[in-house]
């Protein structure tokens, strides 16, 4: 009994849907014919009603520009206190070293960890070096050797302008560079 009731309800629903679709179709067709008739009878007055006045304005485009991604990485905002909560420090204004380490385009230090040979060989890479690269290498060695208590093994690439230090000393080298003002 209950099953047959459900089927009846379903059938009713289907019929209602079908009739609605049919009705819409019918309405559309009528509307189309109707407009054709209108166009034939009184074309000029009907056309004028279709057009609405438009106003062109470019002032609001600044709100669109806010949503568009910038073409270049913007300058970092001025903070009241450094280091910022994320630990970022801006480069210092004046330098007294014969070398320089440029920031990346994202305003970070170009110090990276390279992991090789299945994770057994770790190297600290310092890129974007200007000036006397050998002086920087000596300073890094003199800074790291007392901290680690080990001999600091480095590789200096004069053409590609980078230094590699054996071992994971990314935080130590980063601190050293920030203290130097880079």
């Amino acid at each position: 009994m209950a099953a047959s009731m459900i089927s009846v309800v379903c059938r009713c629903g289907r019929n209602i849907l079908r009739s609605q679709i049919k009705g819409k179709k019918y309405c559309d067709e009528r509307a189309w014919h109707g407009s054709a008739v209108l166009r034939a009878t009184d074309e000029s007055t009907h056309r004028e009603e279709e057009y609405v006045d438009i106003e062109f304005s470019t002032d609001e485009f600044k709100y669109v520009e806010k949503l568009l991604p910038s073409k270049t990485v913007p300058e970092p905002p001025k903070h009241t206190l450094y280091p910022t909560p994320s630990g970022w420090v801006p480069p210092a204004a004046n330098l007294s070293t014969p070398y320089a380490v440029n920031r990346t385009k994202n305003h970070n230090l170009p110090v990276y960890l390279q992991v090789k040979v299945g994770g057994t060989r770790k190297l600290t890479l310092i890129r974007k070096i200007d000036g006397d690269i050998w002086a920087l290498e000596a300073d890094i060695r003199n800074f790291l050797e007392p901290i680690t208590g080990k001999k600091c093994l480095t590789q200096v690439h004069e053409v590609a302008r980078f230094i590699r230090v054996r071992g994971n000393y990314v935080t130590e080298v980063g601190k050293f560079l920030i203290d130097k003002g880079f």
Partner: protein
Amino acid sequence: MLGSRLHSIFPVCYTYARIQELHPLLKRFIVRSTSCNQDNLLTEKSLVGVPESSIYVAQRPSIPLITKREIEFPNRYREPKQAWLESLDTLQDEKLGLVDLHPDIFGTYPRIDILHANILWQRWYKKIDYAFVRSRAEMPGGGRKPRPQKKTGLKRQGSIRSPLWRGGGAAFGPRGPQSFYYMLPMSIRTLGLRVALSVKYAQNDLHIVNSLDIPSDDPKFIEDLIDTRFWGFSALFVDDIDIMPRNISLALKELPQFNLMPVYGLNVYSMLKHETLVLTLAAVEKLEKKLLAQMHKPENDVAYKKRH
């Protein structure tokens, strides 16, 4: 100090009106103007009897003296590179001013490995190898066993088109057409352009001119100009747009060693192939802008990238 040195080189007077009529681009530069005093007039008078080709300073009313140029994204630790702004109006090298160039573009370290990667890429990506040799399946015949398996006294053979046979198919022959297309990473390509420009600058083979307008469409003039200025056996002239001035186009038409190129066509191979690189000031502006935009673009540079 620099200013005083330049004044000794340019004993002429400078007016702002002249600067504006010379080139609209020059308005962007900081220009130092001096009044026309008695000393300058005397200098010009004393040059009247000298033949035109040997006069160092041209007989024009005034020259803009460019001492500085705005540089976007300046390098914190490096001074801008400097180059003379020259002109192609006269045979003799006439300096119109001094322009600053970005040190990250015209003063990078000479990475010959990057140049090599770019040159290899430019040679290889457009190469198509058409070599093709048929395999045993593609050769006619060979379906029948050439002789019985046994009792002939000869080795067992199944097809006359076997790779072991003379006139047989190739076992591992070239299967062309084969494309050697690959794309070098964008960072290597832009670094290649910067290194090539820096190498040209360091070797004194980079010249910056105000425009490519020359007074005559005679090839003799431009050849004499290049000889006089010791610009070598080949030169590449680069402008910011691809519609070149009439005179230089006609003059260089029959000279294959001197070529014209717009900024969008500039590449490492052409820069190294030509001995001298001549850039217009507008080309320098456009080039620097594009390369700096590449250097400082964010990682996610596609607007509204579809995420899956």
